[in-house]
């Protein structure tokens, strides 16, 4: 083959590749028929969402007494669920922002879906503290809004920091996500024949034309947003951990909490991304875009962060002994061998033992095993927050108020229902929005340099 022919072949391959990516990703959105599995899944998700609606109706009419929360365990499940969902969300930002700054090109296949997951997870997370207040219609009191009472948030409280951290995180995540969607909405706009869709996509894409001068500013903005989101994601879970670490309760009042929480968040978030993407790529036949390499890379992140979390558990125990603080020592003995030992050892198994299987290449390349292990990690990370909150609160300084916490049916339905909300939104996203960042995948492939002369 002459260099001329080689060049022609290279250009033809690139054009074919760009067309293929566009057709695959847009094909999902443009398909007239809903896939059967999607309809079934959506019906199931909406049913579970209905459970949430019923639980919330009961909560608003009956009050927080329908939960197992009690004098000692005032936080209990609602806050466990809040921390669980916020943590899930962090993987999305990590993939879209941190891996972008590290020039990890493989992220482009999964970042859009991961960012969507972030936003939906933060929505589920935001629900819980608000309903946990008991009077959610007064939730605006959390914000510094002038009122005739002349009362303001108390800015020395980590709970006030939390309001700012989580709402900033939600806002920035949505801006970042939408910014990434605009060029892809433009693609959908230019392909559609329907006038209604053309109008909707036209408005969503803001009239994007793909001009090089616009791309220049766009790329710079993308880089800046990534650079802003990176410290933001670390700050959010640090501040969530302050909710506990600033409190003077044995088992909470430790300086290791911020890094330990951030590692846990990334750990649980990546497990959730895999839980979602392994079935999604199979069902939408996108294995050539989200390849086995992507899955394997993510299992490595899970292994690394899972080991960090295991290390943090060990350090916590060590410090409880080394500090010589009798109360801290008791709390940890109580965690491992007290009435909630079953929860503690579930957590240790799921979070410390399970990820260690990812040392083996055979495990990292078997999607069925990965899927199962990731589900266990999700369970383990929920139990981590349960162990931190409930075991500490159920046995505090006064033995007279010791108490075995048990949740009620409504605790369970509210938490289960939040999965309904999450999956309903995620399934709608998969069907009606480009689930893969087309322009990023194209730009990150070697085809993006087709025809470039190397002077």
């Amino acid at each position, binding site marked *: 083959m002459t260099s001329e022919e080689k060049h022609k072949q290279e250009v033809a391959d690139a054009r074919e590749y760009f067309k293929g990516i566009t057709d695959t990703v847009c094909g999902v959105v443009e398909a007239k028929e809903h896939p059967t599995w999607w309809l079934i899944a959506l019906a199931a998700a909406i049913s579970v969402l209905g459970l949430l609606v019923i639980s919330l109706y009961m909560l608003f009419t009956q009050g927080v007494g329908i939960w197992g929360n009690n004098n000692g365990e005032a936080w209990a499940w609602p806050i466990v669920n809040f921390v669980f969902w916020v943590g899930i969300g962090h993987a999305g930002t990590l993939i879209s922002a941190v891996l972008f700054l590290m020039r990890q090109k493989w992220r482009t296949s999964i970042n859009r879906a991961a960012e969507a997951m972030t936003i939906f997870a933060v929505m589920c997370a935001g629900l819980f503290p608000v309903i946990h207040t008991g009077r959610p219609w007064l939730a605006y009191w959390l914000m510094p809004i002038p009122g005739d009472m002349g009362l303001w948030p108390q800015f020395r409280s980590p709970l006030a920091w939390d309001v700012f951290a989580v709402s900033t995180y939600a806002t920035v995540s949505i801006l970042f996500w939408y*910014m990434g969607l605009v060029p892809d909405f433009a693609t959908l706009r230019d392909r559609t024949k329907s006038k209604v869709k053309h109008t909707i996509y036209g408005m969503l894409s803001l009239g994007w034309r793909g001009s090089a001068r616009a791309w220049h500013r766009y790329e710079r903005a993308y880089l800046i947003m990534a650079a802003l989101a990176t410290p933001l994601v670390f700050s959010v879970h640090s501040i969530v951990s302050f909710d506990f670490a600033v409190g003077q309760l044995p088992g909470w009042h430790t300086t290791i909490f911020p890094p330990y929480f951030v590692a846990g968040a990334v750990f649980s978030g990546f497990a959730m991304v895999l839980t979602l993407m392994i079935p999604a790529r199979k069902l939408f036949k996108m294995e050539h875009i989200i390849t086995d390499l992507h899955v394997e890379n993510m299992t490595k992140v899970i292994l690394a962060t899972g080991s960090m979390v295991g290390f943090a558990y060990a350090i916590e125990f060590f410090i409880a002994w080394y500090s010589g603080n009798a109360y801290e020592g008791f709390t940890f003995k109580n965690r491992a061998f007290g009435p909630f030992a079953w929860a503690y050892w579930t957590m240790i198994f799921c979070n410390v033992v399970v990820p260690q299987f990812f040392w083996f290449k055979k495990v990292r390349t078997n999607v069925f095993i990965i899927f199962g292990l990731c589900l266990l990690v999700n369970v383990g990370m929920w139990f981590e927050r349960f162990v931190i909150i409930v075991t500490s609160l159920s046995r505090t300084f006064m033995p007279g108020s010791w108490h075995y916490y048990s949740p009620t049916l409504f605790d369970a339905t509210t938490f289960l229902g939040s999965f309904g909300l999450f999956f309903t939104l995620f399934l709608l996203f998969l069907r009606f929005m480009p689930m893969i960042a087309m322009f990023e995948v194209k730009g990150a492939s070697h085809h993006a340099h087709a025809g470039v002369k190397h002077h």
Partner: protein
Amino acid sequence: MSHDNNNDEVEDKLYGLLAEYESPGALIEAARAVRKAGYTKFDCYSPFPVHGIDPAMGIKPTILPVITFTAGCIGLIAAFFMQTWMNNWTYPWNIAGKPLISLPMQIPIMFELTVLLAAFGTFFGMWGLNKLPQMWHPLFSSDRFLTASSRGFFLAIEAEDPKFDEDATAALLEEAGATEMETIRYKTSKAIRAIPGGIKVFMIISACLALVPFAYIAKKRASKSDKPHMHIIPNMDFQTKNKPQTASDIFDDGRASRLPVSGTVARGELKEDDHLYRGKMNGQWATKFPESIVLNAETMSRGENRFAIYCSPCHGLTGDGTGMINQRADKIGAAATGWVAPSNITQDTFAKQPHGQLFNTITHGARTMPGYSAQIKEKDRWAIVFYLRALQRSAHSTVDDVPPGAQPPR
């Protein structure tokens, strides 16, 4: 151009030339050639950012980071002043005696608002600099251009460029390797650029609907109602419980409040000691102070203090009945409307009364004077009687009463 106000007047205008290239590499080369030929009003279009095109086109670095930085600084400063103002100035909030203005507690929110505003600055700044949203553009009239968002690579030179010449420019683009070429014309008709009818109707309807709540509130504010306030969320305002002073069907007497069983005495309220509590000994006014009242300087000064607070406003600080209330009553001529002047309690009539009778007057009042049993405790009432004796004594004293060493020179 006609002179009637016909909005559908159509004029064909030339936008420029659009050329398609087969690859990102070819686009870069074309951009370089066009720039070299001296064109300034041209742009490249691609489905993804083509790397290496910025220097080829001569694109200068954007000022976006400056916008980001400025917005971030505003967020940082705003967060500091917001927290300082809310917790330390308008509503000073003393938490465990910590300094009112302290930086460490403010850091988390200062950080969050810095990031938030910097992100807003970046997001909106980028769209602003790109002059988006812009729903209509001449290039969209080309069907071929629609592939620019999925797989096509285009270069467009505007007719407004001073060097633009339809033939020469076309030749240049052709020479740079264009695979397709198109002249872009657009209509200046307002009808074409107008907002579609459906959207217009939608916007008008939603704008009208948005006014409804405000109109409702305005109407409610301007009108009166004898109904209680609307409670969208009851907040436990209405509870099925009995409140004091209300009627109840449950009890025979129809009261919600229950009376204590007859003969009930509250703790510490038995008050058996007639002398201490009622000023009587064997049914007569006591002529002695109760045993529990110690007659010393401390009791005297306690009595002076209570007298100044409770008695002096009417009776005056010396007890001669010229307190400031009486002075005021005299000034406004209150005697005509039934004002009874307070007594001069240093008079003999009062000096001769037994201790117990004075105590009883303080307790229950006399003439228009009310009783002070609710305000002054028994011990203090006795202290006042003790002090009053001193006042009476001093009101009738002579120079001989002064101790020899302290007498003034005659």
